[in-house]
């Protein structure tokens, strides 16, 4: 008998299954209905909530009126923080006028020594101030992870209230999750040494969010 059959056999014996194979109707119904569980009260406006929560998690947030204003905002942020004015960006952002803003943004896979990574996001979750990033050829996961500074572009129309809304949007637009779905809530951190919170463990030290919207 395979280990799989042995384990499932023990589980079925523990659950006192009478028929073999057991009827899947009960789980089918739940998997189809996908009921939404308990959520905290929504007594806030999503964009403001997103901003407040993101800042509470040590991200910085600014807002620009349109996508064409993003390269200018990126260069201002980098210069203000004395960071290099070049790095890696998602291929999906290659059409923005980086050169015109004086930035050297390359739409290639991120390397271990890249210092700045610019990405978009699939959507953002207001409740927790969280970015939702999907992996893909044009949206590689490493760009938001390897560089010390992560700059994320968030269209305000893509801010949803709760994580469940993000899943609903994912199902509506993509059908199913891609290889990796990463929820990002601020710079990486650790509190392993004396429970002292320290920013910049293995991921970015800084997350800067550029909201795009009216």
């Amino acid at each position, binding site marked *: 008998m395979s280990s799989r059959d042995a384990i499932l056999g023990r589980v079925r014996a523990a659950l006192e299954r009478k028929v073999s194979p057991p009827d899947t109707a009960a789980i089918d119904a739940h998997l189809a209905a996908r009921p939404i569980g308990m959520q905290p009260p929504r007594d806030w406006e999503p964009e403001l909530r997103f901003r407040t929560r993101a800042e509470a998690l040590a991200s910085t947030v600014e807002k620009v009126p349109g996508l064409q204003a993003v390269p200018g905002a990126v260069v201002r942020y980098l210069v203000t923080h004395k960071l290099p004015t070049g790095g890696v960006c998602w291929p999906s952002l290659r059409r923005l006028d980086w050169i015109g803003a004086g930035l050297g943004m390359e739409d290639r896979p991120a390397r271990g020594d890249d210092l700045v990574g610019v990405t978009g996001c699939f959507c953002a979750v207001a409740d927790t101030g969280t970015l939702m990033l999907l992996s893909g050829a044009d949206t590689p996961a490493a760009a938001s*992870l390897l560089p010390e500074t992560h700059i994320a572009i968030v269209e305000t129309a893509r801010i949803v209230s709760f994580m469940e809304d993000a899943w609903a949007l994912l199902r509506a637009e993509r059908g199913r*999750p891609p290889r990796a779905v990463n929820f990002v809530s601020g710079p990486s951190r650790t509190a392993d040494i004396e429970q002292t919170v320290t920013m910049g*463990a293995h991921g970015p030290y800084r997350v800067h969010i550029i909201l795009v919207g009216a």
Partner: protein
Amino acid sequence: MDVRSNEFKSRAAANLGDAKLQRGLGLIKVKAVVNRANAVAEFGDFETLREAGKQIRNRALADLDLYLERFEREATARGAVVHWAENASEACCIVVDIARQNGVRTVAKSKSMVSEEVGLNDALIEAGIEPIETDLGEYILQINDAEPPSHIVMPVIHKTAEDVADLFHEKHGTPRKTDPAALTREAREILRPKFLAADMGVSGANFLIAETGSTLIVTNEGNGRLCTTLPRLHVALTGIEKVVPTLEDVSTLLRLLPRSATGQAITNYVSLHTGPKQLEETDGPQQFHIVLVDNGRAKLLAGEMREMLRCIRCGACMNHCPVYQAVGGHAWGWVYPGPMGNILTPSYVGLENAVQLPNAATMCNQCGVVCPVKIPLPDLMRKLREEQMDRGLKPWPERLGLALWGWAAQRPALYALGTRLAVRVMKWLGGNEKLIHRLPLAAGWSDGRDFPAPAGRTFRELYKEKRR
């Protein structure tokens, strides 16, 4: 991992006098406990959320076979390879085989308690493969001669920044520094090239999602993301009980887990992995293996300990446990310390190998009150204590004492006479101070404190007098 749980009493006694450990443990009360309380208060109706979490976990366990099969079907359809391991050695064999078949030399590991449980690092080393722990705490332990963790969320709670400073200075050959931020940067810089060079990443899984065939991990450092993004293979190793039905269900549990563990509303990273790298992608592993480990879990499902399988490994029970706060996690002598360890260790390694653990509790129920999935931990400990008695696993003086007491308690007249005599003897022992400095048969208790002597008459005597 070797089981040293029967050394609980001696290790606990030693730990009580360990000043550095006591300092680390003291921080739990002012940090982890306070942070959780603030997060719970900020959320509002956390009690209803706990009940919702309990129901979701119960639903998954009630149809565990079906949800596991669905998980396997969906994960396989997306290109993952699902393996089943009956026990620790089979789990290690599976991972070592995957590594060998793919010419793996180094493995970057994200924190996984199941990998500690099955002893994966030793198995890899034996096969000539180098495991590299990448969680900061786990890395510190690994370079300190593979010391075991003392907490499931904060593995080096027993170490000070000074300890880490000495260790890094010695092992890295770098100038000594004590600032936690500088130490963290040093570990980052040492580990970054190892991430980039690793052939395989090993992670755990906080949850398995049946609906989509995905594994989910929560992390703060980003090492979990690196381990699952950069190496050409990813192996997720986890227990069969971790399955939940839907993404909606896991969303509810994700409101409970970080708040209970560290007081965060969400961890820095929540990563959902479904299948390997797609053709056109520039990153992600070419192979994605998921190892589902039983190692005693199905047995728990059948018995009185089933509720323990709801556990989502937040560590709140140990943070709030007066025994854990006093003696630290190493006293438990295996992977899972604190109240959860009092149940899991005897269940997985045998009660005879962890005979003191069900008694390593004050039964104050702090653990039961904070548990995000409402596991009645003290009730489960009580059941294990009954089993200890039934199987004759208690030391003979304790069994004899209880047998004598039981015999006397069934004879009220004799019992009254005995207690009348006893309180008078104890009053005499107390003398003018009315304190007994040394209790016969309980010297361990009276070593550190005095026992107040009784007034000289029993409750039944006083009651009879008042009624007259």
